[in-house]
């Protein structure tokens, strides 16, 4: 006699679907940390007749509950699947055996299966199948970006490779993409984005730029000439800890996540931690400040990783550090008003780059030295780079000018990246044509 039974499953549902449904709900419960199914088994019993079926139904009625039917006793010749908790296994198996009920073990340990399924689900969520399903007009999480990097490098292995240059304070890998057509110890360009984690448009621009480089190679004569003799290094997430924090807790977090014992505030401004005019005006020695320079130059692993890499490489000829917002293209110095020795050359180059940018979408940028265009800032990346001999050191402040600020709508990602690329390309062209 068929009646609706609590938790019962009609014979109509195929076993696989029901099982998946149950497994999924168990995953949810297990994920919520509520239940543990270690050692639990799922037994499959083929009842020969009504009497055997009713023996099984008796099991169901027991309190405290000894079994949990995934596929309840319905008709003879239809298998009965039941989950037996580890603690009841012996009793239940004895019961089945003593009544001549043949059974097989369908699932030896549910918890193992749950763990595997949960892992698989998480994994497929994390990984994109390929970079063609990755949206360049959206903002992404750290995991999505790192996963995209792996796909990207695989798809363009002839041109791109991934280098880990260190790890962050919270032990996340710091990754750099290397674009190279071969050679060894070639002169190179360095580009970084995301040193301030809340400047999301910069990471997004970095990603788009990477794609642009591989698609333009062989098509754009400037980029092709450049890559035929020089390499490009691109660090997209320069502050992975800060970036993760902007997703999890505080969208407007700027610094890294380092902390020193006994100091209540967290984080150092990575763009004040460089060994050039360190500790001067435009940086603070208050750990709670957004422009806290840190205890000493290069104290931060995110900075020392880059500084050491660039120094060890020894052949970087241009450095471009990308920030937002303000719509500016600037060159050193930040720490002083004193002009650099090739100020005129840099001014003219910035002017041309800004013009190239403007021609894409009509966006106007200011340009000049950092201290005279934006504000005095000490211990910054481009000052260090310039003092280390990298003549063509530039800093970008991307869109906008304050309307949305850091929360730039995702719809502006691609236009911003497109125009920025034209400015970068202008700088690359100049670097290529003025070797030193």
């Amino acid at each position, binding site marked *: 006699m068929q009646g609706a039974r609590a938790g019962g499953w009609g014979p109509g549902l195929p076993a696989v679907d029901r099982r998946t449904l149950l497994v999924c709900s168990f995953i949810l419960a297990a994920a919520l940390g509520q239940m543990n199914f270690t050692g639990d088994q799922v037994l499959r019993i083929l009842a020969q007749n009504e009497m055997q079926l009713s023996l099984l139904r008796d099991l169901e009625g027991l309190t405290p509950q000894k079994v949990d039917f995934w596929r309840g006793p319905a008709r003879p010749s239809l298998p009965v699947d039941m989950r037996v908790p580890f603690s009841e296994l012996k009793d239940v198996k004895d019961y089945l055996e003593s009544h001549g009920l043949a059974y097989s073990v369908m699932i030896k340990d549910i918890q193992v299966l749950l763990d595997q399924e949960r892992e698989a689900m998480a994994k497929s969520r994390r990984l994109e199948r390929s970079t063609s399903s990755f949206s360049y007009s959206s903002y992404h*999480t750290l995991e999505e970006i790192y996963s995209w990097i792996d796909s990207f490098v695989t798809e363009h292995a002839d041109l791109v490779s991934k280098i880990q240059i260190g790890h962050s304070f919270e032990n996340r890998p710091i990754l750099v993409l290397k674009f190279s057509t071969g050679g060894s110890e070639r002169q190179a360009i360095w580009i970084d984005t995301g040193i301030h984690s809340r400047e999301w448009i910069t990471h997004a621009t970095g990603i788009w730029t990477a794609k642009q480089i591989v698609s333009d190679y062989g098509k754009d004569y400037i980029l092709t000439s450049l890559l035929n003799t020089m390499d490009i290094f691109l660090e997209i997430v320069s502050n992975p800890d800060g970036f993760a924090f902007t997703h*999890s*807790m505080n969208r407007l977090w700027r610094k890294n996540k380092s902390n020193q014992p006994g100091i209540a505030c967290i984080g150092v401004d990575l763009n004040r931690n460089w060994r050039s005019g360190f500790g001067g005006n435009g940086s603070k020695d208050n750990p709670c400040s957004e422009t806290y320079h840190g205890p000493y130059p290069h104290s931060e692993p995110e900075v020392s990783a880059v500084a050491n890499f660039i120094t060890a490489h020894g052949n970087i000829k241009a450095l471009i550090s990308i920030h937002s917002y303000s719509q500016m293209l600037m060159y050193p110095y930040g720490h002083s008003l004193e002009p650099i020795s090739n100020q005129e050359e840099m001014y003219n180059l910035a002017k041309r780059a800004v013009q190239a940018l403007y021609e894409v979408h009509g966006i106007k940028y200011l340009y000049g030295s950092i201290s005279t265009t934006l504000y005095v800032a000490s211990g910054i990346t481009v000052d260090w780079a310039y003092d280390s001999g990298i003549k063509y050191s530039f800093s970008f402040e991307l869109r906008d000018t*304050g309307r949305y600020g850091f929360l730039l709508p995702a719809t502006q990602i691609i236009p911003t990246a497109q125009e920025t690329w034209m400015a970068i390309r202008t700088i690359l062209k100049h670097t290529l044509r003025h070797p030193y």
Partner: protein
Amino acid sequence: INSKKECQVDLEFTTEHYNPEEGEERLGKCSAQVFFKNEKPRPTINVTCMRFMEKSKRQQEDYLLYKHMKQLKDPLDVISIPDSHGHIDPSLRPIWDLAFLGSSYVMWEKTTQFLHYYMAQLSSVKQWKTDEDAIDFDYTVLLHEFSTQEIIPCRIHLVWHPSKPLKVKYHCQGPQAPEEASGIEGSAAAPTMGLTNY
């Protein structure tokens, strides 16, 4: 002008509709003198505009906005406009606009020749009352301060009726000293804890 103690900035700018429509002309050309004295905030501003919108038309537009806002459903459960991705739901735009109006007053009060501000985000709405005559709006914004890069949370209470002057009361959180900080991560983060959906 004594340049040690005073600073004058001359500006020329054009204005347009806050939410311009396609093909709409720029409204007017303006020039302004902004005068900072003794490095103090609240600069004096003299503005003259040409071809500005007629007063009656301005009043009409204000009333339209006012009526539109009175019909909005209560946004109390809304936080973070724009969201992390810079998105603003079109139905919530007027709230953001009005928040900006109040914030612009606060920012003017704080602006000096060395410090200027932008409204980074409307982080929460405490109260939105439209049952009486005026719109009574109590909210928190995050201001982004140049050149310190600090994020300043400000609680603002504004009362707006198109035919009356805007009333604004506010309180901004002061800077955090190293000794004051508690164990909560992030100096300016405390009021922004619920900021994202992630």
